[in-house]
């Protein structure tokens, strides 16, 4: 239920792994993060995209790392089966959705790259979002 103290506390302890400073976020993930700190500025992270290893730089997002590695598309549209990748680049268009370490529908352009991350293709619609399920919402 809507227990704000709980959600508040939860956020507080969890924030470092989700928001803010990337180096702290990585640090929370253990050994990978420590290694990153030593290899300053180098292409020191490895992402696994559909079974293929891709390099990423610390501070890049998944989307940035994909396009820098020459991958321009990773999703297929539901209706016409067309390929999509980054479009707006800032988290607004949702073209760049993919599944990150099993979490579906992440925006590649916002998701910080973390060493060892597994990226798989998301098929939107498999995970309905709230406003599709709530006809009321649109009428408001």
């Amino acid at each position, binding site marked *: 239920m809507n227990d704000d103290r709980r959600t508040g506390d939860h956020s507080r302890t969890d924030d470092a792994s989700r928001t803010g400073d990337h180096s702290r976020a990585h640090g929370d993930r253990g050994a990978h993060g420590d290694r990153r700190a030593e290899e300053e500025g180098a292409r020191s992270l490895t992402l696994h995209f559909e079974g293929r290893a891709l390099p990423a730089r610390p501070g890049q997002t998944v989307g*940035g790392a994909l396009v820098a590695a020459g991958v321009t598309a990773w999703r297929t549209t539901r209706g016409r089966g067309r390929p999509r990748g980054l479009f707006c*680049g800032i988290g607004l268009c949702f073209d760049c959705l993919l599944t990150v370490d099993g979490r579906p529908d992440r925006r590649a352009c916002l998701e910080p790259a973390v060493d060892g991350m597994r990226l798989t293709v998301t098929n939107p619609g498999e995970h309905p979002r709230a406003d599709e399920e709530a006809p009321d919402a649109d009428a408001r």
Partner: protein
Amino acid sequence: MPTPVESGTSELRDPRDPRDPFDVAVVGAGPAGLAAAVTAAAGGRSVLLLDAGERPGGQFWRHPPPAPGSAEGEDTVRVHHDGARFAALRRALAHHVARGRLTHRPGHQVWLVTRDEDGFLIESTPVHPGTAPVTRRARARALILCPGAADRQLPVPGWTLPGVMAAGGAQALWQGQRALAGRRVLVAGTGPFLLSVAGGLAEAGARVVGVWEAGSPRAWASRLPAVARVPAKAVEGLGHVATLARHRVPYLTRTVVREVLGEDRVRAARPARLDAAGRPGPAGDEVPVDLVALGWGFTPSLELPLQLGAATRLDADGSLVVTVDDEQRADIPGLWVAGEATGVGGAALGVAEGTLAGLSAAGRPTEGRAARRLRARIAAHRAFARAMHLAHPVPAGWSDWLRDDTVVCRCEEVDAATVRAAHDTLGADDARTVKMLTRCGMGWCQGRVCGLATALLASHHAGRAPTEADLAATAARPLAFPVTLGELAELGDEEGGFGGDAVGAGEG
């Protein structure tokens, strides 16, 4: 115990306790929001600054994360423009955070704002959630919305191919994370921002094969007085021109992208000249490219002000913006709006508006000399922005370059023929009806990308000019960002509005 990331007052306020709300909440930590937050804090108010971005600066002062070992806020941040002002704002931010007056909550997107007799309720979720959905609620007596804007887009054949990007997005990839989205780049659309994007990508090492500007530089000639009021803008523009000249970037005016070609990614683009009526001529020769960066100005992000029912108007660029008074107050008690959301005009204008809003929301005098200077600066920048908008309109005949199968709504893949049929065969003559009949603008992005095109096409087919209602129909979003059913469920019934259906659907 201080939180590791969130900076500010160390004891966690119970955000739901109406006896202890923040005095002022600010949404957006771009130029406008940063200025508003530090000004309100300097005025003695307790301030919550919420921002989807991980680092302060918004779209304008985007910068890569700090190098390993150094902290955000150390003066190592190099931004492309006006860095001194940014440094001063960040210093002020750090100062107020250290004094416990300001809580900076980065990486949180606000998806719902509501108002009751005690003030505002602000619901946010982390941009990078863990596994469990978390929604955070904050209360504030006053609210300053500074949500900025997004690249404005018009559909064109082939624009859904990978390798076509929003111009600001391509720029952001480079500025924020040093990733180049292409090697042979075409920058197209309209407005001085294209020069900045082309110059930035050229400096980054891309080969910019052209800037195709739909407008004509002569359109500025009749507006020189407005330009003269903001010399810094003219100097900035000349700087971009010099950069482009150094990289030998061809700059074509009255030229648009007629179509983008490719199978699974961009291969080439074809230009067309615009005639005097703004209609595109036949397509010219293919120009090989691997990135097309498109921008038609900016669309202010109005979902939060519209959730509160703030009054709006149409600005000189045809965008829907919030109406504010000479203290940046919207027509809702306790609500201030600053930055692009009150009219696209750039970062310096945003800082001036944010400062004024911060003063006013903190109950400081807004009549003195400092406030008068702010108002003069705002007026000068508004005049400049107006000249810019009038010199760089959406071409009147833009829809001529659509083909029947050109996708208008990228999310739902609604094509131009379907939008037209909504009028021709189903009688839809406004944007809201077109949206309902075709699902144009009802996908994941909720019309953020195709909203303008949908509004323009709906009114064009109906044989009239677009109205505020057309634009509002594509700019209003019941939830500013998609949230999970779990997050909605956490709201519980007490807020009403999302009723049992939404929650039930999730649990059923």
